[in-house]
């Protein structure tokens, strides 16, 4: 163990945590990496971290990159990072890859596409495994993005796992969504289907040096133009790119900025972020309720008796569940009101 901040991974809590957070806010990469790990694995310190850094977040612009496996998401991310860094932005990247449902392990291969030796890039790249989340992101992606922002990253790129048609969490986590497709992605009917294509703010038809790129771009444009749209509303541009050759990536970059300006000028950015926070808050309430329910309210030791009642067909599962929850909630509320009442009476006696 060295001096300074080097502490073993399982002992870096308590008073040290504050030092790690301060270091992260000052721009220290090692502290940031460590905090990300803690947030990612929902370490006991995670809630303290998120609480402390929250005031320092909310300003970074977040961009989601999604699309089928092998479409060229990582390669495009690498090019975009270059462009952002050229314009002197500090960039954070979160690249999510799938976790093995069998071993729990993961092979995170997005870093392979990063240009080696691109010195002078002000970029923090973090690979993440999706765990058992099914929406294309990891369970803590949003929180990890906040840690990166607290570290001073002005732009945060979030690359999803390779998705099919309906892993759309990224739309709920980012300001601009870039959907990357390839000439092999399908015909006009595929383009008309619900899901992935509906969340795009920008399309990149990558590997455009291959046959069929133009007809795919045309099919996409057709789909987009058939959609009724209010005057002045954003119409997702379709860019053709060959990310590995660096062709067309500048157009994607410019489109991101155009979309950003559009959102900002129409007030949609604030609106989107607000509704995102509302969704997050609702989700957190549900999580909290679930935790309180199982940890404090429901006496799980009675579970086998309840199951037995259901098994004997004395009561159906739906009614049983309702009975358990209402009974426990009522008991809890009664206890609360009784307690406050006695407190008040105590005060009255003073």
């Amino acid at each position, binding site marked *: 163990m060295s001096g300074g901040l080097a502490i073993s991974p399982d002992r870096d809590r308590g008073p040290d945590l504050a030092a790690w957070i301060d270091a992260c806010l000052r721009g220290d990469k090692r502290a940031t990496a460590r905090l990300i790990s803690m947030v990612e694995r929902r370490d006991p310190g995670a809630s303290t971290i998120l609480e402390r850094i929250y005031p320092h977040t909310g300003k970074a612009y977040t961009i989601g990159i999604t699309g089928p496996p092998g479409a060229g998401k990582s390669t495009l991310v690498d090019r975009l990072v270059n462009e952002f860094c050229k314009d002197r932005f500090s960039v954070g990247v979160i690249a999510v890859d799938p976790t093995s449902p069998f*071993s729990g*392990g993961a092979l995170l291969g997005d*870093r392979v596409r990063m240009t080696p030796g691109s010195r002078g890039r002000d970029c923090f790249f973090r690979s993440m*495994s999706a765990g058992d989340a099914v929406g294309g992101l990891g369970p803590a992606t949003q929180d990890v993005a906040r840690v990166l922002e607290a570290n001073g990253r002005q732009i945060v790129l979030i690359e999803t796992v390779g998705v099919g048609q309906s892993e759309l969490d990224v739309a709920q986590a980012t300001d601009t969504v870039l959907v990357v497709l390839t000439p092999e992605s399908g015909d006009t009917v595929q383009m008309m289907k619900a899901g992935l294509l509906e969340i795009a703010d920008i399309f990149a038809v990558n590997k455009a040096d291959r046959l069929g790129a133009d007809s795919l771009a045309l099919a996409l444009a057709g789909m987009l133009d058939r959609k009724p749209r209010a005057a002045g509303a954003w119409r997702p541009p379709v860019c053709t790119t060959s990310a590995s050759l660096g062709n067309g990536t500048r157009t994607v970059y410019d489109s991101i900025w155009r979309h950003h300006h559009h959102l900002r000028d129409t007030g949609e950015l604030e609106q989107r972020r607000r509704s995102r926070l509302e969704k997050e808050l609702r989700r957190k309430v549900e999580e909290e309720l679930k935790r309180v329910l199982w940890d404090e309210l429901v006496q799980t030791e009675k579970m086998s008796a309840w199951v037995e009642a259901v098994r004997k067909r004395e009561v159906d599962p739906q009614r049983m569940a309702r009975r358990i929850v209402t009974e426990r909630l009522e008991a809890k509320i009664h206890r609360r009101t009784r307690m406050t009442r006695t407190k008040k009476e105590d005060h009255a006696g003073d």
Partner: protein
Amino acid sequence: MTRKVRVVMAKLGLDIHWRGVYLVAQFLKDAGMEVVFLGNQFPEQIAEAALEEDADIVGLSCLSGNHMTLAPKVVRLLREKGLERVKVFMGGVMAPEDAVELERTHGVHKVFLPDTPMETIVSHMYESVGRPRHQP
């Protein structure tokens, strides 16, 4: 949630004998580790990746004869970044005396020469970070 062992794996320098590193990476994944695969990288990028990824282990594959120059540099850069807790493992083809020297004087935690059973690599790695093997 327990933290999975995170391994940053790279081919050292310009060496293109990829089969071995692919094989090991896949085995580590199957043994429940999170493998951040870098492909070909030089020591600077490997150390930077270990930093950003909060790695427990750096795994280097080298079959091209430059192990005595590049591997010690990785160890040195990790130390400069305050990452002395990161264990450096190596695999590849080299003279056995080089392997001994890397371990004894250059701070490489362990070198695995050809014909090492995969299970040996996995158990060494779990042991080196002092964590029980991940059970799915």
